[in-house]
């Protein structure tokens, strides 16, 4: 095995561990806020490590840039999604507040 492949395997395995931690957190954590925490922390690092591992074997620079772009987009998406969900739970729209369409 070449050194690139060894590094790739190492980083993919670390990414897998983070995904496992995220899934365990999703199942085991007691309330929604801590589950959000498990999602954002473990998930972005997991995808980051797997992307890092795949860059070593991706072959070309444009493909590597696309991999990094995918990771950045997933980070933007999941962190803002977690902000939306958390904010939505912390400031729940009261009954009737939606009547004028201003209370989301």
């Amino acid at each position, binding site marked *: 095995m070449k050194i690139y492949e060894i590094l790739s395997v190492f980083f993919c395995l670390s990414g897998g561990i983070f995904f496992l931690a995220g899934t365990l957190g999703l199942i085991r954590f007691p309330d929604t806020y801590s589950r959000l925490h498990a999602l954002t922390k473990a998930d972005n690092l997991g995808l980051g490590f797997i992307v890092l591992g795949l860059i070593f074997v991706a072959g070309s620079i444009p493909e590597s840039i696309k991999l990094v772009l995918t990771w950045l*987009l997933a980070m933007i*998406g999941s962190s*803002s999604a977690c*902000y939306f969900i958390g*904010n939505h739970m912390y400031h729940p729209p009261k009954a009737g507040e*939606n009547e004028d*369409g*201003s209370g*989301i």
Partner: protein
Amino acid sequence: MDLVFDLIIGLSLAGVSWRIVRAREHFQAIVLFITFGLLLSLAWTRLKSPDIAIAEAAVGAGLAGVLLMDTLGALSSPRERAKVVISLKLLIPCLFLAGLMAYSILYIPEDFQGLGIVVREALPQTHLEYPITAVLLDFRGYDTWLELGVLLVAVLGVLCIRRTDNIKGTMLPAPAEPVGSWIVKLLLPLMVLIGGYLLWLGAFAPGGAFQGGVVLASAGVMLWQSGHPSLGLMPRLWWKILLCSGFLSFLILAFSSLFYTDQLLTHPATKTWILGVEYAATLSIALCLISLVLGSPARNHENKGV
């Protein structure tokens, strides 16, 4: 390893769809359906059809979730658990059909090539480099034409039965400022860019009009969801022209081909014709999907009394 992976994907697809039917709550069914789309995309990947995997990713991640959530907002009653009644009259034909399908799969010879060879032989005539785009826009142009027609008719139907056709009236307040507007500023240019990239890719690689159109439609729905007024600023006439552009471009192609030969849709073999039709179809698919989502009966429209 391949077999294990395929078996697990297949079994989980069956299991998840069973749970969707049996779900007690609407919301649970929606989340399961989103997961189902994800697993389906993985299945298409394993079947070596990246075109369908990309289309499934775009529709499943972007538009299907939004449509289902808006439907949920419009519903007022909780879901009743579907009763599973298996009647004998239905069971026997179903088992017969399943047996017939299984037999037909066994009947396919091992080295079956399908129409792949024929398409590959005829590919140079179209001047395209990717067989699936050639099939969709040239060899089976009639099918694509009529599919665009079906989409257009669906949009017309939705626009007829909804209460308002004023796009500004359906605008929503921006959710969860300031992140809501920040993420639109960040993601919208990327959505347009990636939609264009997929369209451009269609000439020689997996991608094309439908995938690009769905991503552009997602960009429009994103604008609408964030309450940005620019969709409403678009002149109504342009909206209508772009809605029809895909169907219209096929019609123009069919009519003008009568001058070359005596048959419809036998255009001169140039890449420009096909790509022109594809670009028009992309815009029209995007606009049709945006109109369909905007026509969905979200709760907020009802309450505002528009």
